[in-house]
Each structure stands twice: as C-alpha cells, then as structure tokens.
C-alpha cells in the first residue's frame, strides 16, 4: 500500500485492474485505492507479470503492506534481493528480515520458478488488533511505530518491546534534510517519489528541485473526495453519496492552503472586459461542422489563450520559492474544477500552451469527468504552474481568485453576457467576458499583470490561431 498523501496511514483496495498472469509495465495503473481523501490510481513501478494479488479488493491495510507480487521481467535470472513492488511506501517498514513473502493464509510463499518475487511483506489483515502488551503499545506510540506492521518475535507471535525498537530503527522514515522538506512543502512535492542523491540516499533540496524541473512527482495538495468507483461506474442513485468525513477533510485542506495563500501572498488584482464576438462566431462555425464529440465550449478557447498568454508573460508562470521567483519551463495549466456537493480540485493540463485547442478540449473533458469521479492522478493534481478559475457557467460576472501557493498567478473568467458595447464609435450589442488576474506582488507588479490581460484579450480576437 503506497503512501499517497502525507497524512495517509492506511488505504482500501477498491478495485484490482489486473489479475494474476497479467503483464504489467512500469507506469501502468493496476489498482484503485481509496485513501481517507480520495480514490487514487496505483501505478506499478515495475515491469513484469502479476504473480498474485495479496490484498484483496475491499481490504483496508496499513501503508507499507504488500498489495501484490510482481514477477519482474528480468533480462537475466536471479539478480539482487527482493524489493518492494506495489508497496512502494517510502514511509513504512517493508519486508521482514528474511525477505520471504509470508501470506498467512497460504502458509509458505509460492516461489515462482524462473522468476522471483519482488514484493514481500506480511499481509496484515485489515486492522487486526496486534498482539502486544500495553507497555509495548505505549512504546510503539512513542516511537511512531505502527504495530500492525511489526512482526512479533515473542510467544505466540506477540510483539515485544525490542521488536518495536527494531522496527523504529529500521530504515523506515525517509532520510530527508530539513531544507529539502521545506522546499518540498513550498513546491508541494511528494517526497516519497523523490530520489535522494545524498549520502545513503538522503533526499536533499536539489533532489527536490530537480524533481520539479523534471516535471516530476506528485505535489502535495488536496485530492478529490469524490465518490470514487461508484461515480465512475454508476449503479444508481443509492451508491452516489459522498462520505461526509471526506468532504470535511477536503474542506480542511482547502482551508489550510487558501489561508496560507492569503497569509503569505500579497495579492494584487487587475481586470479587463473582452469582446468575445469573434471567438464565439468562429467557435459556432467550427462546431457546426464538427462531430458531436469534437465540439468545443468557449472555456477551451479561454484556457488555450491563458496558456499562451502565460508563455508570453513568463513572469507569471512559475513558483515563488525561498524568496525567489522560479520560472516554470513549461505551462501546466491548473483548472479549478468544482465538485458536486462542494469542494474543488485543480488538476493540471500538462503543456497546455503546446496543445491545439481541440486537444485541450478533449483533455478538459477527460479531466473534468475524472476529477468528478475522484480519479485524478497525483501528478495532475500537483504540477500546475498557473491556474484558471472559470465561474461563468455559474452565472457570475467576474471572479477574482486566490492564488495557489507556490504559484504566483491565477486567471479568472466570468460569464459571457451580451451587453451594449461601443466599437469604432458605434454602440452595439456584443458578447462580453470579464477577465481577471490575481497575482503575487512579490513576484510581479501590476504592470506585468496588465500586460498579461492585454495579451489574453488579443489572443481571443484571433481564435483561429488558438
């Protein structure tokens, strides 16, 4: 069970997407796991064949528990010792000392001929009460050891104090320097996915920065608290109910991040009104000839224009880290998507400035449906370099948003409304949209923000170029 969030200590396997015998590749989604906050896709970090599924769907297990055993597709036979496969938790004890898989039901592990098990950990039945005295429990609490992950060496498998101490001393906790932790927090980087290059593999600040510039690991943020599989595979209204505690967790996460933003970021705001007549006319013509599935909504044009504007005004595309602006090499456009029943997430459309508007539209639809199904990947949730919020569909005229730290800008769009508007000295009725920008005054000044909105307005007058 991978650690999918900083505060995750257990997870429920919602669904296996593979079965024994299936070949999997590194990066394949092989299972869906429900954390306290969201349903998350679990990727395989190995290429090979599924040997067996250790944790059945429906079980709740602590992080670090083996979910499945993958027989690695080793070019040569018998390489190094066992390693963890589907329990890539950097935060929890993994294999027992002998490295043998020990499925309690099956007794001895099946040692596949020709392959080798690369995941091996005692499966812990869901929240079985560990066999430990109160004194040992106290010690475990003090040492931060999850007793469910400790194998007892005492009588009848009882966990002794020295078992706990050994577990605590085991290379469990990440070796991450304080600076790296701070940088990761600033950048929202999930440290468990960062490779350390320091002595003994310690993660240092540069490792975190490299991970970010490589477009890398999950950034810590809140994750969708959506109805998970039910929404994805609707069975009927009775299954569609969000667990209240999840909504609350998301509310808290939003509260924390937005409070931090308002506490740390001196926002400034600029706004503009843009004539959308040209864009809408172009869009209508295009949609008329397009397949239904290829139709675009105005939001797609707005997003593309925003992405291009962010590229043209790079001072607004990046992060404020350690008292400096760090420009992002590419535009990953965060899109605020509100969830039914409250809350929102802001998954990113990667390299948005490089995508044709039609592709952007496809991504947007995909992202929106997955977001509402609670099926957003970690990297999508964490990579945005600038964010867009569009409340036009809700009928508001304009929105001035709160910046997502450590980003430095957030663009807002209101409703496209027909209003009287003078063009060339003649009053006419035109579809207008209010565009706004909230930006971090530490990184830029109002002049830059104004330039951004001007570029955006120009781009929207040339929809065919988008």
């Amino acid at each position, binding site marked *: 069970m991978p650690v999918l969030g900083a505060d995750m200590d257990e997870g429920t396997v919602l669904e296996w997407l593979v079965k024994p015998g299936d070949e999997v590749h590194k990066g394949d989604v092989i299972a869906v796991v429900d954390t306290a906050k969201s349903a998350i896709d679990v990727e395989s970090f190995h290429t090979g064949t599924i040997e067996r599924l250790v944790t059945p769907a429906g079980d709740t297990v602590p992080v670090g528990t083996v979910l499945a055993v993958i027989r690695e597709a080793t070019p040569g036979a018998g390489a190094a010792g066992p390693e963890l496969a589907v329990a890539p938790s950097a935060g929890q004890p993994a294999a027992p000392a002998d490295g043998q898989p020990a499925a309690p039901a099956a007794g001895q592990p099946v040692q596949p001929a020709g392959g080798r098990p690369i995941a091996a950990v005692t499966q812990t039945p869901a929240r079985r009460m560990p066999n430990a005295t109160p004194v040992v429990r106290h010690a475990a609490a003090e040492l931060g050891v999850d007793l469910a992950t400790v194998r007892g060496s005492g009588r009848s498998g009882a966990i002794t104090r020295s078992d706990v101490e050994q577990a605590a001393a085991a290379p469990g906790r990440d070796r991450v320097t304080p600076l790296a932790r701070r940088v990761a927090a600033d950048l929202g980087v999930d440290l468990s996915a960062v490779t350390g290059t320091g002595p003994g593999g310690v993660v240092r600040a540069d490792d975190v920065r490299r991970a970010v510039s490589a477009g890398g690991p999950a950034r810590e943020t809140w994750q969708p608290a959506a*109805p998970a599989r*039910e*929404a994805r595979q*609707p069975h*009927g*209204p009775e299954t*569609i*109910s*969000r667990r209240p505690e999840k909504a609350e967790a998301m509310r808290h996460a939003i509260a924390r991040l937005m409070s931090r933003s308002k506490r740390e970021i001196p926002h400034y705001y600029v706004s503009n009104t843009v004539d959308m007549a040209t864009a809408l006319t172009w869009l*209508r013509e295009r*949609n*008329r000839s397009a397949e*239904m*599935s290829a*139709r675009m*909504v*105005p*939001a797609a044009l707005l997003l593309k224009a925003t992405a291009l504007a962010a590229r043209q005004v790079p001072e607004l595309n990046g992060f404020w880290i350690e008292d400096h602006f760090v420009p992002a090499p590419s535009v990953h456009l965060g899109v605020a998507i509100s969830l*039914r*029943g409250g809350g929102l997430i802001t998954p990113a459309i990667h390299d948005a400035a490089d995508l044709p508007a039609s592709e952007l539209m496809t991504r*947007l*639809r995909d992202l*929106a*449906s997955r977001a509402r199904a609670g099926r957003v990947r970690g990297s999508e949730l964490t990579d945005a370099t600038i964010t867009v919020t569009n409340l036009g*569909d*809700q*009928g508001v005229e304009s929105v001035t948003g709160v910046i997502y730290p450590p980003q430095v800008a957030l663009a807002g769009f209101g409703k496209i409304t027909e209003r009287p508007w003078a063009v060339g000295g003649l009053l006419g009725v035109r579809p207008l949209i209010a565009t706004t920008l909230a930006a971090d005054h530490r990184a830029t000044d109002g002049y830059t923000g104004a330039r951004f909105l001007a570029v955006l307005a120009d781009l929207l007058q040339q929809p065919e170029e988008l």
Partner: protein
Amino acid sequence: MTPEQASKTIKSVLGEIAPDADLDALSPDADLRDTLGLDSLDFLNFVEMLSERSGKRIDEDDYPQLATLASGVAFLAGR
C-alpha cells in the same frame, strides 16, 4: 421515441451526470442547468449521451430546446 421513453432517457442521463440530484423532484419546466448546477462541460456530456441513446443528432442550435425536462421531452419525442 414516446414522451415516456424520452423522459426516462433524459432522467437516466441526468442521473449519471448529476448523481446527487433528486430527479423525482425535478419540475418539468425548471431550467436544467440552473437547477442541477450543470456547467458547459456537463451539458456537453448530457447532449452527447442523449444523442447516443436516442440515436439523434443534436446541433448546437438545438441546445435551447434542451433547456428543461419538458422541452427536452418534446424535442426528442417530436423527432
């Protein structure tokens, strides 16, 4: 497609798009987008699924006819 079939189809599609909505309480003349909180993407999905299940092409110019349950039923059944 009979009005009953049309109504059932529309409600079924809406149920998937807005799973938390109480469709039984939906007034035939209520604006769907406002009442159910559908955004443009939701509405596009709605149109797409409706087209798929009814087998009918729905152009952008037809969208106003899908504003309410009653007008949607009339639109689908009328074809």
